[in-house]
């Protein structure tokens, strides 16, 4: 019987010493790092250019009150980079990264044919909608980042990220860098690859790249929040380890002015407020919650994460709610069996004192979240969830 270990030992012993000194390895490693960055930048730039070209053929943009509507012709396929092309580019640029997944989100039926729900939003298409709605100011975004390993009801760490659209390339947002308390960082780029689709690319220090794609949007109508949704998916797929603590740092939230300052809730005061599906006092319509649950979306939690920045062309940080009170933005988190690990975030602007939903942010309906009766909403009032009538 051959002694394999001895045989291998002898065979391996014929190897000559490795001839390349460590300093040459370091030099090559530095070149590799630089090349990797350059190729990635090039790949992203190519997508940006293509995205801009896509936007350029996007058709006529019409103004109507405070919303813009893009009527877009079908996008020539050649004008839009494909997901596969981007994945290939990323694989080339980041060979040592592990591409975890590319995933196309199922088309949200609530988005189809519900264009009228988005009144109040400026929209042109893709992230330009965000740019328009924020008047090219930095938009403070509170990302809900979810780890698949989180237990039900466990609240992921909420991180603060600043993103702003680039006026020179409105089809793409600057990368948002998410910084976690444990020092981990994720960079994410949202790219518009066609008028009706968005792509989120996330790359993290842990060697993961995730591409998430959202398509099937009504042409020219990419409502605010879809970028968030993509981000959430991308980061959920990335499996970034998070703990279940905390909320947004109040120090990084814009402070309300005027009478709102005294009434504005602190993050701490929001803790415990509407924390469970059974007690969500700021949800406008309990029936919507029931509907969402019937559709398989289980409401996990509701957290109010920041004061509103702006919506409907109105800057709520400089103004107050309709009753002179503060306005908060609440994110409702939903689970979805089709997208394990992803929590849907729905946005509601809420008058803290009167408990009225003051926003026309109807995208929450498209998110499968609570709906607000249009008549009540028009009146600035919505029923209380316990059915006791408008506050």
């Amino acid at each position, binding site marked *: 019987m051959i002694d394999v270990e001895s045989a291998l*030992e002898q065979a391996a012993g014929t190897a000559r010493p490795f001839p390349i000194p*460590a300093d040459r390895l*370091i030099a090559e490693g530095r070149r590799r790092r630089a090349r990797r960055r350059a190729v990635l930048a090039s790949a992203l730039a190519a997508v940006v250019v293509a995205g801009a070209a896509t936007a350029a053929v996007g058709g006529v943009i019409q103004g109507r009150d405070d919303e813009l509507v893009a009527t877009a012709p079908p996008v020539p396929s050649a004008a839009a980079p494909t997901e596969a092309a981007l994945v290939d580019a990323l694989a080339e640029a980041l060979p040592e990264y592990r591409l975890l997944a590319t995933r196309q989100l199922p088309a949200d039926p609530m988005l189809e044919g519900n264009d009228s729900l988005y009144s109040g939003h400026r929209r042109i298409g893709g992230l330009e909608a965000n740019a328009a709605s924020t008047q090219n100011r930095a938009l403070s975004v509170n990302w809900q980042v979810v780890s698949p390993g989180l237990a039900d009801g466990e609240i992921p760490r909420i991180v603060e990220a600043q993103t702003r659209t680039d006026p020179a390339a409105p089809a793409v947002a600057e990368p948002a860098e998410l910084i976690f308390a444990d020092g981990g960082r994720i960079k994410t780029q949202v790219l518009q690859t066609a008028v009706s689709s968005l792509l989120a690319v996330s790359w993290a220090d842990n060697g993961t790249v995730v591409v998430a794609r959202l398509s099937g949007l009504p042409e020219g109508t990419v409502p605010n929040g879809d970028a968030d949704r993509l981000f959430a998916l991308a980061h959920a797929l990335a499996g970034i380890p998070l703990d279940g603590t905390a909320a947004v740092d109040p120090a990084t939230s814009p402070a309300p002015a005027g009478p709102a300052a005294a009434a504005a809730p602190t993050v701490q005061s929001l803790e415990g407020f509407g924390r469970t599906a059974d007690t969500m006092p700021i949800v406008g319509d309990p029936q919507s919650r029931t509907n969402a649950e019937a559709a398989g979306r289980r409401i996990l939690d509701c957290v109010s994460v920041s004061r509103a920045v702006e919506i409907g062309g109105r800057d709520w940080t400089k103004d107050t709610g309709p009753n002179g009170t503060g306005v908060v933005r609440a994110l409702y988190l939903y689970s979805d069996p089709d997208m394990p690990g992803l929590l849907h975030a729905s946005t509601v602007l809420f008058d803290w004192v009167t408990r009225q939903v003051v926003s026309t942010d109807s995208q929450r309906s498209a998110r499968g979240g609570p709906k607000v009766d249009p008549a009540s909403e028009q009146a600035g009032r919505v029923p209380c969830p316990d059915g006791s009538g408008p506050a």
Partner: protein
Amino acid sequence: MTDDQAYAEFARAEMDQLTRVALLLTGQQQAAEDLVQETLVRAYVHWKKVARADSPRAYVRRTMTNAFLRQKERDRARPELLGSVPDAALDGGYGQVDARAEVRQALLALPRRQRTAVVLRHYEHMTEAETARAMGCAVGTVKSLTSRGLASLRNLLDAAPSDRTRT
């Protein structure tokens, strides 16, 4: 100590052993050096992660294993043959050189994954679990690959007897 200094120290400590492993995997000194260079350069690019790893040594072995196994498609057209001229000057007599050549030749006759499993388990003395992590597969797969690889290796070597070590 700077990152570069730490890396250099690590690389110097590991490079020769990595080369020996790579030689068993590739069968050729030049290919082994290429593989080790690629492994160590990747380790530099990701040095922060390597340094933070529970076992940087295991990390680079996983890197090298991945790099080796992924060469498969790219190198399909490249002949993977043992150098025809053994290096007799290393040490020992010609009989030993022949024996080493036979072992390397026999290893090369194994499918790559079997070869990798055998080398990691029986040359690097990695556990089945460590080997599974390095190869990105299940422990059961490692057991199977190793078992089949050893059986094949023994058959090949038994068929070409020389003054190899026997038990």
